[in-house]
């Protein structure tokens, strides 16, 4: 398989109606590279959480924007980059939810980025050239 197949990019409008397209892209990428169901599920969930956060919170104007998602497979991991030109926002700054409290007493919120951190092996944020860049790493084999 040519090396270029191991990189897949998709550009999405900042509209949650585009999330099914993202899910299809991730699922196809995982299937094409024979990644297991767990890897595919975790990538799909982490990407929905991260990208929906951008769609819902990154923009204060009502103009259309595009969000770039790049998936790269190498010998040890799937690496994901999510780039947007919204307001400077580091999702990792959000406080972790308190899970030691019964559901009846919990604050509802802060779960999205928590899932990203729990499901991915590495999560890093950078702000460069007016863009938010969130990078995720999901290892594909036992280290």
């Amino acid at each position, binding site marked *: 398989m040519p090396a270029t197949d191991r990189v897949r990019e998709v550009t999405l409008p900042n509209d949650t109606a585009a999330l099914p397209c993202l899910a299809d892209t991730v699922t196809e990428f995982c299937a094409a590279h024979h990644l297991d169901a767990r890897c595919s599920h975790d990538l799909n969930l982490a990407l929905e*959480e991260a990208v929906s956060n951008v769609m819902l919170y990154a923009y204060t104007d009502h103009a259309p924007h595009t969000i770039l998602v790049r998936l790269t497979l190498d010998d040890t991991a799937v690496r994901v980059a999510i780039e947007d030109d919204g307001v400077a926002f580091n999702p990792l700054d959000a406080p972790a939810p308190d899970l030691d409290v019964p*559901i009846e007493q919990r604050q509802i919120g802060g779960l999205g980025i*928590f899932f990203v951190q729990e499901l991915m092996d590495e999560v890093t944020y950078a702000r460069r050239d007016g863009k938010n860049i969130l990078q995720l790493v999901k290892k594909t084999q036992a280290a």
Partner: protein
Amino acid sequence: MALSVEIKKRPEGGHIVAPKGRLDTVTHEEFEQKITPLLNGGTPAVVLDMAGIDYISSAGLRVVFKLWKNIAGNKGVFTMTNLQPQIKAVFDIVKALPKETVFASVDEADRYLSVMQQKAIEQLRGATTT
């Protein structure tokens, strides 16, 4: 369709809620609309049958938790059953699988609800005789 929701009344009181498909950013509002009549005393008990749900994200979880909190807050009983493995894994990450809430089947949840309803009746009887 990404999500359909079936809600059935239990003969002994309460409702069985059976969503099918995905509970995510795109479908969570629809799920919330469907369960709204059950909130704020709309039902004394819920069995959330998750057999038909193959994907849930935080947006879907928020609606489940909203229903859960609301039922509990109105002194009702909330139970959940038939979680597929990947769904159970998601609830596990947020430590939301208490033994007294999650059951292996609708039958088991039903039996638990009957016990709880019997206890509630006995408490009422006890209260009126003192």
